[in-house]
């Protein structure tokens, strides 16, 4: 019997791939195309920025030719007010109610501001958005965001772009254990093993940008992280053995031969 990947419902989307691909940091649109193909991602994130005649609308044109859904983000916003307007711009541009809500507190650590994030989540949820809330790995904040109407809660493993992995796995486990909305590990993943750990901790999906887009060979890392995500998902469902203090033989003790010496 083949193990299957059940689809996960994130906002208005039903996805069999549990790797959400961030396009930020990619050296070119060609690389974005390659990593989408290599990872088989079905959802990719984008930012909204001022129209540049030189760039035209090339990323939009590229993504429309591929079988992926697009999740706009509010990256670069530091207040709920800015984030709400940016989310509405994303809805207009891409005709989607899904929004990755990012409201940051500081340029240096890029950590989310929980107070502004909560305000923006409430306002956008009331306005019909499916809010994918990017948050700290704090179980209390995660719970509060869910109560405020977040459709998906996305705790960080480590600050954006650091590749430091999951610094507080126990917090992620607590967030998963209490959640009744999907949990997506966002930010901090540095390589394939981190994605597997996130899924083993019980996350429903992972969001990865820099670890792939800034890898030496992005298409290889895209494939590796996609496989690790799938492996971690199946590993979680397979059910790990309990950890023991002392060894437990896997070969039977009965029927052992007796030899001299």
């Amino acid at each position, binding site marked *: 019997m083949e193990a299957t990947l059940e689809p996960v419902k994130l906002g208005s989307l039903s996805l069999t791939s549990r790797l959400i691909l961030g396009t930020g940091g990619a050296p070119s649109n060609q690389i974005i195309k390659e990593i989408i193909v290599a990872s088989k991602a079905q959802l990719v*994130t984008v930012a909204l920025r001022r129209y*540049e005649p030189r760039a035209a609308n090339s*990323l939009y044109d590229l993504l429309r030719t591929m079988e992926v859904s697009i999740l706009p983000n509010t990256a670069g916003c530091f207040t709920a007010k800015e984030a709400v307007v940016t989310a509405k711009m994303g809805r207009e541009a891409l005709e989607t109610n899904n929004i990755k809500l990012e409201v940051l507190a500081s340029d240096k650590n890029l950590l989310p501001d929980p107070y502004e994030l909560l305000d923006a989540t409430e306002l956008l949820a009331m306005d019909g958005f499916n809010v994918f809330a990017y948050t700290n790995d704090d179980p209390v904040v995660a719970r509060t965001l869910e109560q405020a109407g977040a459709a998906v809660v996305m705790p960080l493993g480590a600050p954006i772009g650091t590749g430091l992995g999951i610094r507080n796995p126990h917090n992620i486990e607590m967030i998963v254990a209490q959640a009744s909305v999907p949990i997506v590990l966002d930010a901090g993943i540095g390589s394939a093993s981190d994605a597997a750990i996130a899924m083993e901790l019980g996350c429903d999906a992972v969001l990865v940008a*820099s670890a792939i887009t800034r890898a030496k060979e992005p298409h290889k890392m895209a494939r590796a992280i996609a496989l690790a995500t799938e492996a971690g998902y199946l590993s979680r469902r397979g059910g790990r053995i309990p950890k023991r203090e002392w060894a437990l033989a896997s070969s039977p003790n009965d029927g052992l031969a007796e030899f001299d010496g």
Partner: protein
Amino acid sequence: MIEIILNGSAYQVPELTTIDGLVEQIGLQKKGVAIAVNSEVIPKSNWTEKSLLSQDKVELLTITQGG
């Protein structure tokens, strides 16, 4: 002609230019872009109705790489 502030820079458009007209003047496709005037998002359904006024601050956004 009137002057508006388009993405932070002065930009000339004929009087009574609508959002739709502005987009046409720039030569943009309408998909994948969004426009706010004075921080208010203008839905595409209103693009043919909404006229620009002198010194309106227009933000014209499109999608770009992002995580």
